[in-house]
C-alpha cells in the first residue's frame, strides 16, 4: 500500500512508466506483453511511446515451472511475435512483478524463437517477494501486499485500467 493506505491508480502508474521509458527505450525496441495484463499495458505503451515499436504478445503457459503441479491452464492464447526475435531489442511488459517466475518463463520462450540482442523488463507494479534474481528495468509503482493476496489488473469496456487486491487463487 502507498503510505496513506490506498491502492495506487493504474493510469497514474502507467503515466509514470511512460515517463521513465520515454527517451530510455531504444527507438526500434519491440514491446512484448505477457498475457493478459502485460498485453494491455504493452498496447498502451506502443500508442504513447515515440518511435515505431513492433508489438508482440506472449503466452507463457507452456513454459511455466508449475505444470507438473497444476497441469495446463485453460484458455491458452497464441504467442504472436511479428518481428525477427534474433538480434532484436525487446522490452518485456507485464502488469505485476512478484516472484519473477513468469518473466523467467517468458525469457525462455523468447529464446526458443531466436537470440535477442537485449531484453529489458517494464512492469506496472513491483510488489517485491522475488524468488529468482530478476529485476525490472522500468517500474510504474512499488507496492507491498500480504502474501495471501493477489494484485489484479482490470480493463473496463472503455479501455481504462484499474488495480485491485483479491485473495490469492482468484483467477486473474
Amino acid at each position, binding site marked *: 500500500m502507498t503510505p496513506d493506505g490506498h491502492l495506487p491508480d493504474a493510469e497514474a502508474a502507467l503515466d509514470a512508466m511512460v515517463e521513465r521509458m520515454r527517451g530510455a527505450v531504444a527507438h526500434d525496441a519491440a514491446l512484448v506483453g505477457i498475457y493478459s495484463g502485460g498485453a494491455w499495458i504493452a498496447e498502451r505503451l506502443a500508442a504513447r511511446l515515440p518511435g515505431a515499436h513492433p508489438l508482440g504478445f506472449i503466452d507463457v503457459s*507452456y513454459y511455466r515451472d508449475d505444470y507438473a503441479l497444476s497441469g*495446463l491452464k*485453460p484458455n491458452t492464447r*497464441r504467442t504472436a511475435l511479428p518481428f525477427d526475435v534474433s538480434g532484436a531489442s525487446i522490452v518485456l511488459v507485464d502488469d505485476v512483478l512478484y516472484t519473477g517466475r513468469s518473466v523467467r518463463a517468458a525469457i525462455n520462450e523468447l529464446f*526458443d524463437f531466436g537470440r535477442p540482442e537485449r531484453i529489458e523488463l517494464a512492469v506496472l507494479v513491483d510488489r517485491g517477494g522475488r524468488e529468482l534474481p530478476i529485476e525490472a528495468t522500468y517500474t510504474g509503482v512499488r507496492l507491498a501486499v500480504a502474501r495471501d493476496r493477489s494484485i489484479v489488473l482490470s480493463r473496463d469496456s472503455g479501455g481504462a485500467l484499474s488495480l485491485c487486491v483479491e485473495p490469492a487463487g482468484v483467477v486473474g
Partner: protein
Amino acid sequence: MTRNPQLTANGELTHLLTLEGLPAAIVTHILDTAEPFVSIAEREVKKVPLLRGKAMFNLFFENSTRTRTTFEIAAKRLSADVINLNIGASSTTKGETLLDTVDNLCAMNADLFVVRHSQSGAPHLIAAHLTAKGRSHVHVVNAGDGRHAHPTQGLLDLYTIRHYKKDFRALTVAIVGDVLHSRVARSLIHGLTTMQVPRVRVIAPRTLLPTKVESLGVEVFNDMREGLSGCDVIVMLRLQNERMKGALLPSAGEYFKHYGLTGDKLALARPDAIVMHPGPMNRGVEIESPVADGARSVILPQVTFGIAVRMAVLSIVSAN
C-alpha cells in the same frame, strides 16, 4: 463394471483408452488444448518444454510407421524423450508376456506408454495392471487396439470437423467402408454421439458391418448414394487387401463401383461437405484421386491437426 478406468477419482483424464464413455467436457477440453498447439509447428523452434524429462515409450505390437511417427513428433515437440519399441506380433511366443514387458519398462522409469496392439483390450489390460501395481504416475495412450478403438484418431477427426464446421449439433456425418474391422470408425462414432451430432450414418455392404451396429447410435445405409445425400462430412475408411479374401468382398473393382467416393457421388452431399480419410489412402479403391486431392478434401490438414491433438492428449494425461 468398475469406474471408468481412464479417469482418476477426481474425474481427470489419466489414460486415454477409448472415446466411449468419455465425458463431453473432457473431449472439448482436449480439442481446446490442441488449438494453440497447432501454431507451434509454425515456430522456428517447434518445441515447448512441457514434458521435458519425461520418457515416452512407443510400445507397438503391430507395425505402423505413420502413427508411431506422429506420436514421436508430438512427444518431441513437448520436449519428451521418446523410445521406440517395435515388438511385432510374436512377442508372446518369444516368452515374455505383455505385462512382463510393461513391468520391465516401468523399472526403466517410463512415464508414458503409447500402445498399439492387434488385440482389442490390450491397453485396458496394461492400464489395469499399472493401477494394480500402484503406478499412478504412468499413463497409457491407446494408439489402436484390434478393432476396438483408436481414440486419438477419433479426436483429431472431431477436431477437423469442428475446425471446418463449427457446431457439431447441426451436422450429418457419414462413415463409409469397412466398419466391421475398423477401430477408427468405432472411436469416431463414440466421439460424434458424445458431441451430440444428430445424424451419424454408416455406409457399407452387410459383410462389412458389425452385428447390431445401430446400437452404437448410427443409421445404416447399404446404398452409398442414399447415404451421402445431404451429408456435411464424409469419412472414408481404408479398405485392406485382406478383405478380398475371407469371402467378405469379391474384388476391389466392385467395391469401388459401389462404395468408392467419386466426384459424382460427392455431388450428392451438401455443396460445402468436407471429405476426410484416416490414411493411408488406397486410391482407386475407396476414393478417386480427383476427390482425394480436390477442394473439399481436408485429408492433409487432418495430419497436421493429428500432431496437435496428440500433443494435447500427452500433455493432459501427464499432468494428472
